[in-house]
């Protein structure tokens, strides 16, 4: 871009900075508030935005420890946050591994092999992204209710059911990985094939190591996707011990039982690591999606 500088340039820069900073203050207000609230004693707004008395009570509860309040009463954690976090990580980890396995092999077929219905399949996958699982909730509930009467660990209120329900959500990831495979020159694999490698060996020992970065990213995206998923988990999980973070966090803010401060600490504790992972993964997500979406 060429810039034609004139006298008003300096003022414009200042204005832009001022505008951006003002906007940032507004958008980041919730985050600053939540930090302040997590350090404030009690669960209700105390009349000031910056806490007057620092207190770590909410953090102790979030970490699963109790604390002694002013009147000498022992307060136990209201919810098993760490347990929820572990549930989330467990479900998301297994889901991400399954999703990665399924989508990598599919993407290989779409990128490298020629077969009937290839273009149709790609289009079908593209369309599928637009139909969220929330539309099929009734069926998902009914299906796992049925399965559960024969295989309890895959029924309602089990983590196995959640992993299975998430395993179908591979459409977008197939596109992402295929987009990356398309950018890897096919000649390297052909050279391997000439040297006597089978299709599978070319895929496993030549292409996959070169595609490692995108595999990491897809794993992380699938991981985060499963952690933040709410609708399916809210229908499949019921018992407090079994909940994932996304479903459990809501319990803090019921009108009858409003635990604002406890929620704040739990939110930071669980939200921070996920945010960091996402910031790392998203750089690759958009490039993967757009390069995958344009090529057919």
């Amino acid at each position, binding site marked *: 871009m060429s810039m034609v500088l004139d006298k008003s340039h300096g003022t414009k820069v200042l204005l832009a900075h001022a505008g951006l900073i003002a906007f940032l203050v507004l958008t980041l207000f919730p985050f600053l508030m939540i930090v302040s609230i997590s350090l404030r004693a009690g669960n209700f707004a105390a009349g000031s935005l910056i806490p007057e008395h620092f207190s770590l009570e909410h953090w102790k509860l979030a970490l699963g420890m109790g604390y002694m309040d002013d009147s000498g009463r022992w307060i136990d954690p209201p919810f098993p946050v760490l347990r929820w976090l572990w549930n989330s990580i467990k479900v998301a980890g297994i889901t991400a591994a399954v999703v990665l396995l399924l989508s990598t092999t599919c993407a290989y077929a779409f990128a490298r092999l020629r077969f009937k219905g290839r273009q149709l399949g790609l289009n079908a996958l593209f369309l599928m992204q*637009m139909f*969220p699982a929330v539309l099929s*909730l009734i069926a998902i509930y009914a299906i796992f209710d049925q399965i559960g009467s024969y295989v309890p660990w895959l029924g309602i209120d089990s983590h196995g059911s959640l992993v299975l329900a998430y395993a179908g959500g591979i459409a977008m990831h197939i596109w992402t990985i295929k987009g990356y495979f398309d950018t890897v020159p096919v000649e390297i694999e052909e050279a391997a094939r000439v040297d006597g490698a089978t299709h599978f060996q070319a895929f496993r020992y030549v292409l996959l190591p070169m595609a490692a970065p995108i595999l990491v990213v897809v794993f992380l995206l699938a991981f985060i996707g499963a952690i933040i998923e709410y609708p399916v988990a809210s229908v499949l999980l019921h018992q407090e011990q079994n909940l994932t973070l996304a479903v459990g966090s809501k319990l803090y803010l019921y009108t009858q039982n409003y635990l604002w401060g406890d929620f704040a600490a739990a939110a930071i504790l669980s*939200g921070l690591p996920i*945010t960091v992972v996402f910031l790392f993964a*998203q750089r690759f997500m958009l490039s993967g999606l757009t390069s995958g979406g344009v090529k057919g």
Partner: protein
Amino acid sequence: MTMDVALRTVDNQVGLSRKNISMQRFNSRYVWFAFGALTFLAGLWLILAIYRIGHPFYALGGLVLLGASTWVFTSERAYAWRYLYPGVAAVLVFVLFPALYTIGSGFTNYSSTNLLSFQRATSYFLDQKYSASGDEGQLTLSLYPLLVSTDKRDRANERYIVYVENAQGKAWQSEPMVLRGADASTLKLKPAEHAPSGDKAGLKDVIAHQATLKTLALKLPDDADEFRLSGLTKFAKMEPLYKQNADGSLTNAQNHDVLKPDFKTGFYTSLASGEKVAPGFKVNIGFGNFERLFSSHEFRGPLVKIFIWTVVFAFLTVVFCFVVGFTLASILNWEGLKFKAVYRVLLFLPYAVPGFISILIFRGLFNENFGEINLVLNQLFGLKPQWFSDPLLAKIMLLLVNTWLGYPYMMLLCMGLIKSIPSDLYEVSAINGGGVWTNLTQITLPLIMKPIMPLLIASFAFNFNNFVLISLLTGGLPDFTDSIAPAGSTDILVSYTYRVAFQDSGQNFGLAAAISTVIFALVAILSIINLKLTRVNAQEKR
């Protein structure tokens, strides 16, 4: 395998150096063969097991699946499908099948009153028992605890004598036994001269052992029939309440009423009184749900309002997010600006924080009484807006929060697209005296619009179904005051579906599935438009 034939010729030509590799492949092929054979046998065993517990159709489905898998992994012609098969199977089973099942349920009366299949409902009736002997034949139960220790922790081993007495005052008793966790069993009683020593257990203890007592069948020495629990402290001879007749109807053994299954309503109906008898069963009711949705006063009113709000909500969200995102992207693409990287990360933050956390944060901040937003507004302007009880304010709040959640994505997209605009266009514009406004309306926007259109439509479709936001922030509240159905002024179609299916006391799955079907159709239209636009763009690029 043609592949291997080709390779073998290569091996022969090149000579011995490849021998090692082909030996390895030889070995690994055996391993794979063994693995495949084992999996095949395991699958066969599973299908047999499914068949034996009485599901011939599931077994047939499993057989087809196993056959397809075997073909895919042995036939050379299906080579590509070896890679596709697992993923495609997962998509078919967990995405496509639920979608079709949902659409199918839209044509049934599936709900909490008609939950069971016809077979299950029938077997429920056939499992019903009644005490045939009337009140005189009943035995009154008492439990006499044997105090082993007073330690509370020892309760699991607490032993009781089961003592029963009939209406004539004759009594029988059992050996001392552990009740907690006892298995279903037949308990033989001996005649008792008098009640066991000590106090009998209170009603609370009897209630605590109900689960075990229900599984007990008591046998008296001179009686062939079993006695089973018929009330809290009563045992009686139980007999099946219903007998199935040849035509499928059920006869009540107690009052000789006949129940006939009605496949229109999904209920057994009493011949004598014409009343429906719960539980009902699932039947196909054709377009019944759709008729209810579109023509009944109860549902049409809320549905129309909800549909309009859904469209308005999705459309305004996309517009606001695009305007904010595009503005920020334009500023951040400006070369004269410093600290761009810092701004970029900070501005992106709302998108990186998990949605369920940030939405709940807003739920707390907007709280009418304890929320920090009203605290600030009250101190500055003396205002305390009713964010959650006023329909209009609730909608404004949703749009505010959703713009906050969505603008970073638009910003990122716009930044990429603006960067790809050739800079000489702006140079030409500068030479011809074009200002910022001309650049924006004549160059940037027209060039961005085409590639971003499919993404905007995708974003529209996403927000059209943005269940998480509605559910976590307002839950659809405040509710319409004039509606019987559970519907609120901030409900969008999906959240309404969820409430009809899972929150309404009626749990009307069929009706909810019908709404889902309507949404499926709407989203399908959107996605076809989207696919067309994407294709046009792709062709123009070539």
